[in-house]
C-alpha cells in the first residue's frame, strides 16, 4: 500500500491542506499582523495610526516600570520551576516505587487537576490564602500567630499557586522517564554499597535529568506566560507581562504598546526554550539516545 502511495508525491500535501489552511489563516496571519501592529503608534485622541517606528519597543525597553514587570515575570517563572523540581522530582520517584494500584490512583489525583480550569484551581488558593482564609484560620486557631499573615497579593502567594497549577507537568514528565529506567540499576548501586540517599542522588536523579529538563521547560514557559493565576492572586499591584498586555489591550487601549510587550515576551520565551534545547542536546546527546 505504501509503495503505491509513496509514488504520488502530492498526497501528503493534500492531506495536510486543511490544517495548513487553518493555521495559515488563523495563526500565521494574525501573528504577522500583531508583529506589524507593534510598530504602529497610538494616540489617546487619534487612536491607532499605521506607521513603522520602534517607539513602542524603545518605550518598553527604556522604562524601569516595564523592567520591573519583566523581572517579576521571569522571577515567578524561575521560582516556580525550582519549586516544581524540588517537590515534583521526589514525588515522581515515590510514585514510581509504589504498588501500581496505588500509583494509578495518586497519579490521577496529581495530573487530573490539569484538566480542571485554572480559574477554578486559583480560586481555591484565593480562599485558602486570604486574610480570613483557611490557612490563617488554622494558624490562628492553633495559636501559632495572633495576626493573620498576608499571603494573597504577595509574590509568595502567586508562586505557590503557580507551582500548584504547573507541578503536574513536572511529575508527569519525570515519572515518564523513571518508568523506563532499569530498576536493577538501583539494586546494582545498593550491592556496591550505596545508601538509599546516595542511590537517589547519584543514580536516579542523573538518569531522570531528561525528564527534569523537559518538565522544567514546560513549567517555566507556562509560568512566565501565565495570566489567570497572577491576575487573581497578584492583583493590580503585582503585574506580570501577561496582565500588563491585558491592561494595555482592554483598559488603556494602547494596542501597539501591548503588541510590543507581547513580542518581547514571545522572543524572550522562545530564546530560553531554544537555548535550553541546544544545551540539552549538546550535553546529553551522547549519554541518552
Amino acid at each position, binding site marked *: 500500500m505504501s509503495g503505491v502511495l509513496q509514488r504520488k508525491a502530492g498526497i501528503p500535501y493534500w492531506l495536510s491542506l486543511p490544517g495548513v489552511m487553518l493555521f495559515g489563516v488563523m495563526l500565521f496571519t494574525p501573528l504577522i499582523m500583531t508583529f506589524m501592529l507593534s510598530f504602529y503608534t497610538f494616540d489617546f485622541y487619534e487612536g491607532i495610526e499605521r506607521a513603522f517606528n520602534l517607539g513602542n519597543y524603545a518605550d518598553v525597553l527604556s522604562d524601569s516600570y516595564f523592567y520591573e514587570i519583566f523581572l517579576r515575570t521571569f522571577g515567578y517563572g524561575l521560582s516556580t520551576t525550582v519549586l516544581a523540581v524540588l517537590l515534583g522530582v521526589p514525588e515522581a520517584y515515590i510514585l514510581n516505587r509504589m504498588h501500581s494500584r496505588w500509583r494509578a490512583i495518586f497519579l490521577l489525583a496529581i495530573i487530573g487537576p490539569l484538566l480542571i480550569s485554572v480559574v477554578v484551581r486559583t480560586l481555591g488558593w484565593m480562599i485558602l490564602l486570604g486574610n480570613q482564609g483557611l490557612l490563617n484560620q488554622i494558624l490562628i486557631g492553633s495559636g501559632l500567630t495572633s495576626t493573620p499573615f498576608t499571603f494573597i497579593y504577595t509574590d509568595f502567594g502567586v508562586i505557590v499557586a503557580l507551582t500548584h497549577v504547573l507541578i503536574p507537568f513536572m511529575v508527569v514528565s519525570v515519572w515518564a522517564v523513571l518508568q523506563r529506567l532499569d530498576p536493577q540499576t538501583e539494586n*546494582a548501586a545498593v550491592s556496591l*554499597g*550505596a545508601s538509599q540517599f546516595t542511590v537517589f542522588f547519584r543514580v536516579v536523579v542523573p538518569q531522570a535529568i531528561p525528564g527534569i529538563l523537559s518538565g522544567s521547560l514546560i513549567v517555566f514557559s507556562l509560568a512566565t506566560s501565565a495570566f489567570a493565576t497572577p491576575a487573581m492572586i497578584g492583583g493590580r499591584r503585582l503585574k506580570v507581562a501577561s496582565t500588563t498586555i491585558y491592561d494595555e489591550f482592554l483598559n488603556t487601549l494602547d494596542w501597539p504598546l501591548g503588541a510590543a510587550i507581547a513580542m518581547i515576551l514571545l522572543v524572550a520565551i522562545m530564546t530560553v526554550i531554544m537555548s535550553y534545547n541546544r544545551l540539552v542536546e549538546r550535553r546529553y546527546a551522547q549519554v541518552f539516545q
Partner: protein
Amino acid sequence: MSFLNLQEISKSFGGFVAVDQFNLEVDKGEFVSLLGPSGCGKTTTLQMIAGFLDPSHGQIMVGGEDLTARPANQRNIGIVFQSYALFPHLTAAQNVAFGLEMRKATQGERQEKIDRALDLVHLSAFRDRYPKQLSGGQQQRVALARAIVIEPTILLLDEPMSNLDAKLREDMQLELRSIQEKLGITTILVTHDQNEAMALSDRIAVMNEGRIVQVGKPHEIYEDPANVFVSSFLGKNNLLAVEVEDISGSKASVRFNGQSLTVPCREGVTNKEAWLSIRPEKVQLTDKGSGLLEGQIKTRVFFGNHWLYQIETASGEFLVYSQNTAVPNTAPRDAVGLNWQADDARLLNMDAS
C-alpha cells in the same frame, strides 16, 4: 565448614512458595551454578543472597557470619544483572569507580583498581565510553568489572550471558571462568542453559519448583541423575519402562521385552515399575536381530560431529547419537537393533522424586 551456607531458606509471595527449604553449601573459591527451568526460583534465591529480598525462613551464612538481616549495601557481594544494570549516565570507568567511591577509596587506589579491573576484562580502551556506546558483550564486561572491583566476598551472576549471541556467549564463558579462577572468587551463577552450567561450574545445583533436586559435579549429575526430571533436563535421554525383579545393593535386575538385565541403581528405587534411562550417545546401532531392542529408523539427521537417529521401537521412540566416523551404511526405514552396556543404563523411579 563451608564458606557460604544457605540454611533452609524459603521465600513465599503471598501464598505462593517461590523457594522452598533451600539448602546449599559452597566452598571458598568454588563456582556453583543454579540450574533450572524458568520460574523455578533461581532469581529469587540470588536476590535473597544479595539482600534485595528477605527470606521468609532460614539463614544465610557467609564465612561463619549471619548475613540474613544485613542490609544489601553492607554485604559486599558483587552482582552482574541479567540486564547488566549499568548506570547509563556514567562512563565505563565511572561505573567501575562507583563501588570504590562508596568505600571511600583514595584517588590513587581507585585509579589503580579501576585500571586493573578494566584491564582484566580487556576494556582499557573503552574506559570513557558511555554504556550506550558499547556493544552488548562490552557492556557485560563493564558490569563484571564493576562487580569484581570491590573485591566482593561472593560474586552473583544472574543469567549474564542470556543477551549475547551464541559465538560471543562461548567466548565470554571461557573468559568468565578464567577471570574467576584468577581471582579465586566464590561465584554463584544462575542459568537455565545446561551447557553453560556444565561448562563453567565446579558444581551444579539443579532446581525445580523452588527446591533443589540434586547437587553435584556436572559430570556426576549428568551420568548419575537423581530422577527423571534431572536426567531429561540435563541432556537428552531415552526412557524405557521396565519391571524391577530384584534390588541388591547398588544393582538391580530388571525385565523388559522378555529379557533380564542387571543395571546400576540409585538408592530409593522401590517400585515394581521403573524407568530405565539410557543416554542417546550410549546406544549403539547393530544389525537387525542382535540388539536388546529392535526398531526401525524413522529419520536420520547430520549434526557435523555426530548423526542423530530417531528410531521407532515397540517401547516407544529412541534417540541415538553416533559419532561421525564414516558414512553410515543405514538409511531410513531400515530395521536395526539397539544395544547398550548394562552399566550405562540407570534405573529411576517412575514418579519425579
